[in-house]
Structure formats: C-alpha cells, structure tokens
C-alpha cells in the first residue's frame, strides 16, 4: 500500500456550502478509498473508486479520480454540521492483505 497526501490540511466552511478535498499519490493504483473519522473515533468507509473509473457518486459525495495526474478529489455537497470530521484517502495497489496507509487527512469544520 502507499500513503495518500490530503490537501488542504484544514478546511472551514458554512453549513450548506460544498467542501472539496484532494488526494495525491505516487504510484499506480487498483483503487482509492476515502474514509472519515469523527474526533478520535473509528474510521468509516465512505466510497471506493477503481482505477478504471473517473467519477463516482454516493448520496452527497462525489469522488473523481485522475490516474494520469495521480490524484483524486472528494466533494461533499450541501454540507452539514455532522460532516465535521477528518477525511482520509487510501490508495491501494497490488494484491495481498490490502492494509491501509493513512496520511494526516483533511480536517473539515462545518459551521452551523
């Protein structure tokens, strides 16, 4: 596995606005996952996008993947205070046990 680098490190928006966070990685992947962590709690899987996909939606989430630029973005539309959390990307390549390597994440604050 490899570590993704999330950007920005912190993001503060008003409720109702959209939030965009980015992820870059270094080597080719099979898929890329996004996880959310509420303060000090367990990680929750949000969405997985495969290397042959360019865009994927799940509810208010939209993920894009650009394998030529080795980057992904996560868009949360119509944000809510409950979206306040840290968001992590996890690029996965190869086979094996698929252990995840997390970066520092993007800390999103949604202000009511």
């Amino acid at each position, binding site marked *: *596995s490899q570590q993704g680098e999330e950007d920005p490190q912190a993001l503060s928006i008003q409720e109702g606005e959209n939030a965009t966070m980015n992820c870059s990685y270094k080597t080719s992947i*099979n*898929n890329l*996952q996004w996880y959310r*962590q509420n303060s*000090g*709690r*367990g*990680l*929750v*899987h949000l969405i*997985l996008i495969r290397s042959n996909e360019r865009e994927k939606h799940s509810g208010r989430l939209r993920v894009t993947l650009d394998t030529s630029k080795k980057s992904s973005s996560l868009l949360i539309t119509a944000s809510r205070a409950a979206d306040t959390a840290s968001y*992590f990307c996890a690029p*996965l390549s190869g086979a*094996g*046990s*698929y*252990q*995840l*390597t*997390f*970066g*520092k*994440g993007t800390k999103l604050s949604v202000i009511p």
Partner: protein
Amino acid sequence: EPEVTQTPSHQVTQMGQEVILRCVPISNHLYFYWYRQILGQKVEFLVSFYNNEISEKSEIFDDQFSVERPDGSNFTLKIRSTKLEDSAMYFCASRLQGRGQETQYFGPGTRLLVL
C-alpha cells in the same frame, strides 16, 4: 447492520503490564487488522491476519505484540510489557476475502493509557 466491536473501550495499565485488547470482527469476514493512533497523529497499520496467521506486519509490530484468533469470533491484540509510548487508540478492522472486497470496516477503538 453488522459491525466490528471492541472491548474494552478504555484501558488504563501500569508500564510493564500485559494487556489484551479484544475485537469481534464481522462474522463472515476473513481478513483482520489492527491499527493504532497516537493522540494527534496518523492512523498507523500494525498487522493483518488471515487464515490463522499473520499476513503482513509493520515495523511497529515488534516482539512485544502478538495477535490471536482464539475462537471463531474473537481477534485479540496482546502487548506483553507495555511502555509509555504504547498509549494510543487501537482500532480493529475486518473485511471480506476476494477481489472487489477491499473495503475495511473499523471498530470504535480501545483507548489505552499506560502510566
């Protein structure tokens, strides 16, 4: 919806003591993991476990650590002689086997404090 559970939620121990952290993965999952997160730092991979043996482990997972699946439901992490720097949140995760089953499901964590 099935979920990964972990016990205890909090554990306080004295330096040098042994601790066992317990996890019950989702019942039909076959891959199990332990991660840890020191306060304010990244979530770090410790070990993965499949078919009753360790499949991969990180540099953090030294001889002080061991994992076991003592029965058909529990998955444990043992720290033999705890150090102050073992204080962290420990997360268990599990997933299904096979291609297309890369999603991991995390438990709520055990907060370990070593004094």
